């Protein structure tokens, strides 16, 4: 039942062309190589089944926990995600059985020297090739392999491309997954990690203070210098996200060091295949302190909140956790009171959190909500696959 279509498209682009490829029957490829002003892309698409790739977008600033989130997400699908075998050791891609995660820095149109010359940051859309990003994400979504460039974070140069084959779940993570309207359209689900300035500062101190040459002043200067571009190009993307994880300082105690966190999971209503998580009663407004007679918590305790809100004009449900888990029974107790978390067995959230207890945030709302979003994405994927199987069946009946 293999149907083969061969078609050619002409695409205007800054510095990429595609060389018409040798056609491998049964292997869908779209080749790009750099150098000339136009490119001709030959799609050879021979699909034996209707498997389409589900595309997930994850946006956040540099150093705000995208890698940790990706490790939690790929873990939910089973199997460890690893860099492509035998490829460029500086590749930014992670591959597991089900998922492929690519870093959108690979679509930088200006390398480090180019940005320096022009005086633009990587946050600036001018430093990124959204045409190529769109073309390639679209191709992968349609089941066509692509030769994606590699941005080398060590050298600051664009390395020779690597082959990305269409996975079941394709995650694009980086600074701009929801910036370009065409790319946004391709996303089946999108997440934005919204880290408050206080927490961002604390996290970067943790990350960088041990590094030679860094000081509180340099960390602060770097955040401040990047802020105008961050506010202009990165932050506005959160209005398009299906789920936003907001990370704020605690309100339980005065805490200047960002050790205790208040984390809010903002979930858009009416997103296909995504039913927001709720606490006790869907749609009500609830404040919940699980610590009491049945559960003893360590200082400063844990506080939950849940309720409907409006976010950039959209109806959303917000689940909030302030404080941290110090003991296992606290997490189990909380999990058993949440609904719609898309687990396959009782205690799956707890099991996932325990499995990665060494990841940052495993004892607070960041780890909890990242794990839950991972489970929701698995659920979304399964619903999409089921609906695809069902659709042709119905067509046959009719």
């Amino acid at each position, binding site marked *: 039942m293999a149907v083969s279509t061969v078609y050619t498209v002409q695409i205007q682009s800054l510095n990429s062309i595609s060389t018409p490829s040798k056609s491998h029957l049964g292997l869908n490829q779209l080749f790009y190589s750099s150098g000339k002003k136009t490119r001709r892309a030959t799609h050879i698409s021979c699909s034996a089944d209707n498997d389409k790739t589900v595309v997930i977008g994850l946006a956040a600033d*540099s*150093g705000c926990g995208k*890698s940790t989130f990706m490790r939690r997400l790929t873990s939910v699908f089973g199997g460890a995600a690893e860099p492509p075998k035998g490829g460029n050791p500086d590749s930014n891609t992670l591959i597991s059985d089900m998922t492929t995660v690519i870093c959108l820095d690979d679509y930088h149109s200006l390398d*480090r020297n180019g*940005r*320096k010359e*022009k*005086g*633009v*940051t*990587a*946050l600036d859309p001018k430093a990124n090739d959204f045409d190529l990003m769109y073309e390639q994400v679209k191709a992968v979504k349609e089941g066509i392999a692509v030769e994606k460039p590699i941005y080398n*974070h*060590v050298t*600051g140069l664009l390395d020779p491309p690597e082959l990305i084959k269409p996975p079941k779940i394709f995650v694009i993570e980086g600074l701009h997954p929801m910036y370009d309207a065409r790319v946004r359209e391709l996303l089946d689900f999108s997440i934005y990690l919204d880290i408050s300035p206080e927490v961002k500062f604390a996290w*970067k*101190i*943790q*990350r*960088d*203070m*041990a*590094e*030679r*040459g*860094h*000081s*509180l002043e*340099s960390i602060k*200067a*770097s955040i*401040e*210098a*990047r802020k*105008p*571009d961050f506010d202009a190009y990165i932050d506005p993307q959160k209005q398009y996200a299906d789920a936003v994880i907001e990370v704020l300082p605690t309100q339980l105690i005065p805490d200047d060091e960002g*050790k*205790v966190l208040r984390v809010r999971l903002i979930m858009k209503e009416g997103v296909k295949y995504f039913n927001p998580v709720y606490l006790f009663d869907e749609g009500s407004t609830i404040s919940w302190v699980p610590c009491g007679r049945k559960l003893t918590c*360590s*200082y*400063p305790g844990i506080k939950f909140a849940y309720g409907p809100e409006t976010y950039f004009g959209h109806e959303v449900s917000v689940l909030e956790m302030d404080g*941290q*888990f*110090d*003991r*296992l029974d606290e997490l189990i107790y909380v999990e058993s009171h949440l609904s719609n978390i898309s687990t396959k067995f009782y205690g799956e959230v707890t099991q996932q959190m*325990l499995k990665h*207890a*060494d990841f*940052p945030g*495993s*004892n607070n709302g960041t780890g909890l909500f990242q794990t839950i979003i991972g489970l929701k994405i698995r659920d979304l994927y399964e619903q999409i696959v089921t609906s695809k199987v069902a659709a042709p069946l119905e067509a046959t009946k009719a």
Partner: protein
Amino acid sequence: MAAIAGVSITTSKVFARASVRSSKPSPIKLSLLNSPWKSCTTHLRMYVRPLAAAPDKLSDKVEESIKNAQEACSEDPVSGECAAAWDEVEELSAAASHARDKSKDSDPLENYCKDNPETDECRTYDN
């Protein structure tokens, strides 16, 4: 200032591991942040690992980029060059941090034990 904070971060990491052995976790200690439930599975194998430094090449680059950024901004603190220079610092700092994480993962003993969990040097004991 930088050196002091660096030491304190390293120490807290060591404590986090060390606290695995103490059975009574006192509430709200930074030491618990990294391994909240480690006390359930006590391993006898020593687990203290120093904070691995980023590969020297990257560390040099981070240090150099900070100097460059300070220079670029001394002329005009709101210029594109200044922002681009500090953006380079961020990019290199993130790369250095990722490199540290990677080298943490590539502990030779851990890798060996993944494949040979039954050998004497990889055996772990529960209390």
